[in-house]
């Protein structure tokens, strides 16, 4: 991890009358991070992103981006940020090309034909460059959203639910593009997503917020490592296996059974150990399927927050 802080947020708060949307939030995003920003609906993710992009003014707190206070240096900072905020909306009566040209010009970007076509090619819209955006599907708009976020070659890319509404192929394409931008282009990515698997695959660090406040923050590996994993063991005889489990130290780890599948909640190191134990006792284990993922962790954290 690079120690240069790209986003530094301290005590960020936003109140809409009596409703506290974001409550004393701290954020640390470092150069080169793919930073996952997670939280249930209404957690304050979009409000936070809008404050980072100065679409909304904070009620309290400080935002520093690239080491400089956002409020005083907005114009300079914005030249280095590209973003998609919620669903991608464009000037529907203009072509994809013209939308990019206009937004690029406002950003002070190179808006030569070559550059714009390059951007459209990157997101696979080069053949539709003349088409008005009103004829585009949601997925195409989402891809054009990425192109407008990248047109001025920003250092920090803020993506708010970039794969929402896309088909699996579209989601994979966007994910691959994010990975490419991070690894090949060394961009810092701030990724808000509902799709936890996506964050798990892409992100290096993450934060989970709920009710506007931080629940946990850290590297994805560390956060997942610290908790137990749900694992399904596929066995030849579940009754025999259960008897063996009840006589062992994994008695408390057993969760449920269905047909020949037994679900345990185990620490990561315990999985091969249990597998060996069952094999030694003559149980044929045909598959070990870890079902523990960020989703479980997320639910546990956010439900905990609700309590």
């Amino acid at each position, binding site marked *: 991890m690079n120690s240069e802080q790209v986003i530094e947020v301290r005590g960020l708060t936003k109140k809409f009358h009596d409703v506290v949307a974001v409550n004393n939030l701290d954020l640390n995003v470092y150069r080169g991070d793919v930073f996952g920003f997670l939280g249930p609906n209404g957690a304050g993710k979009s409000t936070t992103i*809008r404050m980072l*992009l*100065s*679409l*909304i*003014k904070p009620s309290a707190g400080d935002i520093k981006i690239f080491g400089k206070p956002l409020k005083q240096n*907005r*114009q*300079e900072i*914005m*030249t280095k*940020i590209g*973003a998609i*905020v*919620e*669903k*991608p*909306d*464009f*000037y*529907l*009566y*203009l072509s994809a090309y013209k939308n990019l040209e*206009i*937004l690029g*010009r*406002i*950003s*002070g970007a190179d808006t030569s034909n070559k550059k714009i076509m390059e951007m459209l090619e990157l997101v696979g819209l080069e053949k539709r460059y003349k088409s008005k955006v009103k004829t585009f599907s949601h997925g195409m708009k989402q891809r054009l*959203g990425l192109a*407008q976020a990248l047109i001025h070659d920003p250092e920090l890319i803020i993506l708010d639910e970039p794969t929402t509404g896309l088909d699996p192929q579209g989601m994979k394409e966007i994910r691959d593009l994010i990975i490419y931008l991070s690894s090949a282009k060394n961009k810092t990515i701030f990724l808000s997503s509902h799709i936890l698997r996506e964050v798990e695959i892409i992100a290096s660090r993450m934060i989970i917020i709920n009710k506007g406040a931080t629940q946990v923050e850290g590297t994805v590996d560390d956060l997942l490592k610290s908790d137990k994993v749900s694992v399904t063991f596929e066995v030849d005889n579940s009754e025999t296996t259960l008897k063996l489990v009840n006589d062992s130290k994994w008695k408390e780890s057993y969760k449920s059974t269905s047909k020949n599948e037994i679900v345990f909640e185990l620490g990561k190191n315990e999985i091969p150990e249990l597998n060996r134990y069952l094999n030694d006792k003559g149980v044929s284990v045909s598959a070990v399927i870890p079902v523990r993922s960020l989703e479980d962790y997320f639910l546990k954290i956010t439900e905990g927050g609700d309590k």
Partner: protein
Amino acid sequence: MITLISIELYKIFKKWRTYIGFIAIGLLTIIVQVALYFTGDAYLKSMTHGLSNSFVMVGNLFNGYLIANLVLMGLFVHIPFLIVLVGGDLLAGEATAGTYRILLIRPASRNKIVSAKFIAGIIYTFLLLVWLAVISLGVSLIIFGSGELLVFSGGKIVIFAANDILWRFICAYAYAALSMSTVFAFSFLFSSLVENAIGPIVATMAVIIIFLILSAIPVDFLQNIREYFFTSHMIQWNEFFADPVNYKEILNSALILASHIIGLYIISAYLFIKKDILS
């Protein structure tokens, strides 16, 4: 700033609604011109009925200048609606379409963006008035020719010599552009307050209609405060067709309208800069 203004103008002229004003003015003017082409003599006779008994009318009184004056008087009341169609959409339209989110995350400051939009709207207003001038005066002069202009001013009939008219029209159109810019500024202010373009259109027209109604009610109190209504100053273009021209009064009204435009712009910009973008 020039980049932003050119982008805003490009956006304005890429929208269909922008051309409604140009088409409406073009069609209405042509209809008036065609109608007067066929029935103009009768109209002029009825207009000069009292005079023709006492005076001998020579020369071409039924000419392009007269038609342009009639068109300007007739359409002036309706042009505000065509202005607010665009003015009301400039900010609220971005909110409705959700495009604030891609526009306001750019390095340009909100102050520059709102100013560019305001200036682009003023340019649109001026272009609409230029179009009105071209189609009502230019085309009328081509069809009906030049001549003296006969107008009713302050209860009198005034006839201007042919070489004393064009400048009056140029000044009248320029003043009309100022009046319409005030209407635009109202619609721009309302546009900064809401997230739907219909609201500013209705609100601006409501303001104009309310002030016009209040001006027309023959009650002393309302008549006394009438001069403070911006609508009273909007129609001062007519003064350029008076003899002599009351420049002091025109300048006073022009300053009042200009201060309205500046004031409304400052309030709109302040509201826009302070606004949380939630759309």
